[in-house]
């Protein structure tokens, strides 16, 4: 932080089991987060299946900054910034499409979808000027794991694999639920505008304490046994993978029930094609285990939330505004489960979702509360006395404990201080 900043030292706002309200509401802290987190660490951009063909592109983002995720004519994924290097005009005005070149509408400079300048309009005015080095801005580093495309604005830093660490297992677990091992995110995203700081979402995604209260209405109406997963006797775990990645691990409960597809509220009989495809792909025993364990509930810092059957992407727009992008997980080669995945996703999430509209109500109330100065500190001490290490050395505790939130802030502090 600069000498002239009015900011307090960030380490004076974060303690192991409590955080200061100002972290959610201070504009300078938000700007600092953009520099030290969003423009530096690995951020999830999109999935390869969203640009299946050569020259496909889709507009994604890193925080408020739009990023064009492009598959160039050679088939390589590129992450370009949507700004003409001439006078700064927004280059592409469309959300997605297929094109080999982008032409700026202002003075008609044309760029290849690799980012290189192909030509000036009225080139006589640029006699002797080289086109080299005049291309579009790029996200400095691209990392792809199992189709998940991440970008880092920093030219140097930890590799994507170092960043993902233990949370890589969640991406594997998700992909293993596909009979082909691949996802196809083809259903489009809902965009839920939220008048709250992004970190309320980051913290809530793996909060196992809230569902029994925030979602009591839908559990009651659907007479769902799911509420028990969030109760005192639940054997589910909260987990801190380090690097800000956190998890709500339901596998202990599903293994206790020992029934394939119970995690998805269905059965092998009701999804015969999917079940057959899984057994053909993995063998009976492994397929059965995958279908018992189900899909993960994991928040990959800072913006990719795997919510079993949905993928959320968090996009902070301002200190008090965040967009939650969400789509249904779709498994390549599994039409019968995909239909059900879409139907359940549409019911649960997005602006009208039977679940997420209530979470989002809480985010907006969280934010209004954070603006009140007394008490200044918010409490994250739940389960501190029963935190322990799992077999891989990651911190875990009871399903309702605040292990994930403490882990998020530990990592946040390290990034904001470096």
């Amino acid at each position, binding site marked *: 932080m600069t000498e002239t900043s009015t900011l307090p030292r960030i380490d004076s706002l974060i303690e192991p089991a409590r955080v200061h309200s100002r972290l959610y509401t201070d504009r300078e802290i938000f700007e600092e987060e953009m520099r030290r987190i969003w423009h530096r660490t690995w951020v999830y951009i999109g999935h390869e299946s969203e640009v299946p063909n050569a020259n496909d592109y889709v507009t994604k983002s890193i925080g408020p900054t739009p990023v064009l995720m492009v598959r160039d004519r050679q088939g390589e994924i590129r992450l370009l910034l949507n700004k003409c290097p001439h006078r700064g005009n927004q280059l592409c005005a469309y959300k997605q499409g297929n094109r080999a070149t982008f032409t700026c509408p202002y003075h008609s400079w044309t760029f290849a979808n690799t980012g290189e300048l192909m030509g000036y309009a009225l080139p006589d005015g640029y006699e002797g000027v080289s086109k080299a080095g005049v291309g579009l801005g790029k996200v400095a580093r691209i990392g792809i794991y199992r189709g998940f495309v991440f970008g880092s604005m920093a030219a140097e830093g930890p590799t994507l694999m170092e960043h993902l660490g233990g949370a890589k297992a969640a991406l594997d677990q998700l992909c293993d639920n596909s009979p082909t091992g691949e996802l196809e995110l083809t259903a489009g995203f809902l965009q839920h505008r939220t008048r709250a700081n992004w970190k309320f979402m980051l913290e809530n995604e793996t909060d196992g304490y809230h569902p029994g209260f925030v979602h009591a209405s839908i559990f009651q109406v659907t007479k769902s046994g799911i509420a028990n997963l969030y109760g005192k006797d639940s054997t589910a775990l909260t987990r801190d993978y380090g690097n800000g990645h956190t998890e709500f691990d339901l596998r202990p409960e599903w293994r206790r029930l020992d029934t394939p597809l119970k995690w998805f509220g269905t059965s092998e009989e009701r999804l015969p094609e999917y079940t057959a495809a899984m057994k053909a792909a993995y063998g009976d025993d492994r397929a059965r285990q995958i279908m018992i364990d189900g899909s993960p509930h994991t928040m990959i810092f800072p913006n990719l939330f795997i919510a079993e059957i949905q993928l959320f992407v968090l996009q902070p727009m301002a200190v008090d505004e965040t967009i939650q992008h969400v789509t*249904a997980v779709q498994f390549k080669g599994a039409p019968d489960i995909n239909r059900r995945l879409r*139907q359940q996703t549409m019911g649960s999430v997005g602006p009208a979702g039977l679940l997420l509209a209530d979470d*989002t109500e809480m985010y907006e109330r969280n934010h209004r509360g954070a603006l009140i100065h007394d008490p200044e500190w918010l409490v994250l001490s739940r389960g501190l006395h029963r935190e322990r290490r799992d077999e891989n050395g990651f911190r875990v505790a009871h399903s309702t404990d605040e292990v994930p939130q403490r882990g998020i802030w530990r990592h946040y502090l390290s990034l904001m201080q470096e």
Partner: protein
Amino acid sequence: MDPMLAEKPVDLAALSPVDLHHRVAQFLYLEARLQDTHAYDAWEQLWEDDAIYWVPANGHDTDPERQMSILYDNRSRIKVRVEQLKTGRRHTQTPRSELARLISNIEVVAVEGAEVSVRANVLIYEDNLRGETLWAARNEYRLRLVDGAFRLVRKKIGLVNNARPVFTLSFLV
């Protein structure tokens, strides 16, 4: 309900355009009032068993069987949605949104047997804890005449800004 609508039998094809338009408009205003006043049970009872209640996202000609929609309810999910609102613990509607909607540009598009297809524009003012929100939509309806009264078979709410991020939409739209 308007006693005029309870006359039976009514042959839609035999109605004058003015009479048909009037009956359609009266029904849309009734639905609007039930929604604005959170009359959940009465609104739910307007729906037929083969209902589709649809708010598309990312455009107006998407395939709801393939693409994500903001809302895509069949009859049983409409019931779940209403039952959730009635628990009093649907937090996003406790307190409830204050609502007033205007319906205009009503056009009867087609009559087929006992069913009539309708277009209308709607502007909804919402006030809640977050603040004031305006919702604008081009709606499409399929209404069915049952025992002399219209019922909802299909309602598509085409939010004009559905390709952009929108705030929580938890009242009956």
